[in-house]
């Protein structure tokens, strides 16, 4: 009354989907500040305003893939930021660290945090008081550019210096 239990036969080749390959990665200029991103309209902003900071100084820097090293172009931006922040001392500052979507969620939260810390440390090295600076990581949760290739990912790998607490 016992019957063979195994029902494993007829090998079937299992096709794994090899999905869409990553689109070709043309080298593209990485936008370097808000003006490059088309966020602002030139130098008309009131000096000392957050618009002035965003448009004329540049509120964000960009990182290489899986890196939190502050690049040379980013150092120039942060130096300008530090000069501006040292002149307008009424602002408390939050540095947001972000990652592109090409990493897993928890690792990218950690990577965003490291980018924010590297940015904060650079600003401190240029004389910005550490007690004005806070950091937060959004990992890959807050992309600014939405597409499926490197032209967007490079804009999302960023640290953004945000001004708050004016008058405080």
């Amino acid at each position, binding site marked *: 009354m016992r019957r063979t239990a*195994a*029902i494993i036969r007829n090998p079937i080749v299992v096709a794994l989907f090899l999905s869409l390959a990553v689109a070709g990665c043309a080298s593209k200029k990485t936008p370097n500040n808000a003006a490059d991103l088309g966020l602002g309209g030139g130098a008309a902003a009131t000096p000392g305003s957050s618009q002035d900071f965003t448009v004329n100084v540049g509120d964000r820097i960009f990182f290489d893939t899986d890196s939190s090293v502050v690049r040379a172009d980013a150092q120039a931006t942060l130096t300008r930021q530090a000069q501006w922040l040292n002149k307008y001392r009424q602002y408390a500052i939050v540095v947001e660290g972000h990652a592109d979507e090409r*990493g897993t*969620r928890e*690792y990218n939260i950690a990577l965003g*945090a490291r980018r924010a810390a590297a940015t904060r440390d650079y600003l401190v090295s240029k004389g910005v008081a550490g007690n004005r600076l806070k950091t*937060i*990581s959004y990992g890959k949760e807050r992309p600014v550019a939405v597409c499926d290739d490197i032209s967007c990912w490079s804009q999302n790998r960023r640290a953004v210096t945000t001004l708050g607490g004016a008058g405080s």
Partner: protein
Amino acid sequence: MLPLLKKMAVAAAVCLMAAPMAVLPARALVEIDVTKGNIEPLPIAITDFLSNDAIGAEIASIVTADLKRSGLFAPIDRGAFIEKIANPDATPRFEDWKVINAQALVTGRVAQEADGRLRAEFRLWDTFAGQQLIGEQFFANKANSRRIAHIIADAIYERLTGEKGYFDTRVVFIDETGAKNQRQKRLAIMDQDGANVRYLSDGRAIVLTPRFSPTRQEITYMSYEGGQPRVYLLQIETGQRELVGNFPGMTFAPRFSPDGQKVIMSLLRDDGNSNIFTMDLRSRATTRLTNSSAIDTSPSYSPDGSRIVFTSDRGGQPQIYVMGADGSGQTRISFGGGSYSTPVWSPRGDLIAFTKQAGGEFQIGVMRTDGSGERILSTGFQQEGPTWAPNGRVLMFFREAAGSGGPKLYSIDLTGRNEQAIPTKGYGSDPAWSPLLE
């Protein structure tokens, strides 16, 4: 005349009871081979349960869907049935089922008791051996009729494969709506088949990475509530929330220990790196397990609690490491080329599931706990975050196809076959499978 051999665990809100009506020595009709992709599903006939209303057919269809989705069973179309089951307690005409190649047959009945509860009975028959394999009955509130069906499907799965089932389980996940740069994320919970979705947060704060307690109706997750990203606990039934610990920096990547008494997670250091800590939920004592100038995150305990697998980029890029539960003996185990993250220890203890990035693609795979025997189960443009079914035979993960706008949930067998989309209303990510419900 049949002895009451066991009582099934009784859930407080549910009250299900099983009284086995006959017990035979276990003999698997289906053999599960986790490394080969060539299992032929077992033909099984699942008849509508006798009832006065639609519920008999509904239970049969849920059982059918569960078994079919497992990939191990091929439910036979009802139109092919010859014998009409008029009395599910009577021995069926086995010839009528053998001729349509039904190797197993399920019959049953469901009725409302005087006290309003449902009584569901079922029998599983081996048609070729001409004998009954299981006879059981369950009682439950009418609201739990889907659970009765899942429990019956688990009993059939276990009897025919020799493995525990996983159908009477739930999944917590993140429900995602809205454009990618304005995404709203909510904690959500559903049955493993996508039914009974319930939302556990309102979408105002970003919420991420929910994980089930192995011992309580409780989850741990990360929330950006109040602009401060930190790890929380949430009681699923009461909605009561609690911050885990009072750490100076961001906490993230939480999971429970196998005894449910600790949460293990990453804590951000002031220098921007992340280390792994545990917090004992009773004593509130915190313990640091790693202390590297690198990212250490995504910790996951072995089921016996003796070891922890985690992600670290201390070697230059994210790779998988294993250490003792006290942080001792930190050893890299992933060497396959590319980067590795999101390691999760199998509930059976033998494997670690992971996300691998290589060649511009994301892969879901498994390896043994020493890093050997790597097998890639699925490759895609963007996918990550495997979670194990409690029997360690099926993984769920989330995938975003290029240009699709958002992620969806999928399950796949340890064989790398039988990939199934999990139906969700919106986009879905960060799934975490519950233990078998009790």
